[in-house]
């Protein structure tokens, strides 16, 4: 379960930011998480609750915005589509689709007291 490693990354970023702001307690951490990542939401939340204890993020809420997978075909004039069943071949012409969104894994912002 690599979600523990990912939560550690999230906490490192948030706590570093809180320390740069006078060790202010963290109220909320907002993530942008693409659908096309190997992250299980429940596992992420479980690890977050366990790992935030005793840190500046002890009282923090985790807010996750899921970003849908979207792609486009350059051959068909950049028509956007949502790949079905992770099929990255264009349904119209068979060309390889370019991924536009769905690979995000970011801390967008933190809210401090």
């Amino acid at each position, binding site marked *: 379960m690599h979600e523990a*490693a990912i939560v550690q990354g999230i906490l490192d970023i948030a706590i570093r930011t809180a320390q740069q702001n006078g060790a202010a307690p963290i109220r909320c951490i907002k993530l942008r998480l693409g659908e096309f*990542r190997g992250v299980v939401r429940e596992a992420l939340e479980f690890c977050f609750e366990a790992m935030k204890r005793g840190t500046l993020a002890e009282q923090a809420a985790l807010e996750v915005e899921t970003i849908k997978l979207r792609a486009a075909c350059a051959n068909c004039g950049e028509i956007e589509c949502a790949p079905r069943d992770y099929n990255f071949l264009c349904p119209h012409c068979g060309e390889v689709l370019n991924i536009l969104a769905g690979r995000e894994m970011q801390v967008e912002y933190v809210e401090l007291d």
Partner: protein
Amino acid sequence: MHQVMLETNILEQNETFAEHNQAHFRAHGVFVINFMSAPGAGKTSVLEQTIQLIKAEFKLGVIEGDLMTTLDADRIAALGVPAYQITTGTVCHLDAQMVQRALHNFPLDGLDLLLIENVGNMVCPAEFNLGEDLRVMVYSTVEGAEKPKKYPLMFHQADAVLLNKIDLLPYAGVSLAELERNVLEVSPETNIFPLSCRTGEGIEAWVDWLKQRNAEFRQTPAANAAAVH
């Protein structure tokens, strides 16, 4: 209360370590391959077969990631190739920092190729860049045709997919064409090599491709800088 905008990559620390690893590999002129698969797909067998075919021509080193045991590292060492074991304990993947620590104990001097066998797991290793040049996935025919759709990320990021155990196709209940189609839908630009470690069929085609990729790497300015060094 105030909001601090960050837009920071969560795995940025791993990326930083991966860049350091890559620089270290470049300084030694070593071409690095990260092997990934589900448990039991035959990753260690593929490594054994590959090593036997190229060890006369190239100086090889192997890093083995394993949860607990040194069984796989022992199998590689038996081939007369230096093997270093990273025991991850409860961690289900190798990360760039583990590889960096291993490099302190595992000299790259004189090596041409470094083969890294990741922990057997279809999800977690896909998220962690180690600083490698090639990602190779081993997918055995007996795992069923749906694997690429269930674990798309690892397939999507693989430069090559080795379809192992083709000798078992008559018993697997799937056709080679179906397996190949599912892989290519998820990862249209990957290279597929059907093979069998048991019969040896197809191994040479894969090894020829690997040698070709290594030769291309040797043509790059980065590799040549190391050679002059």
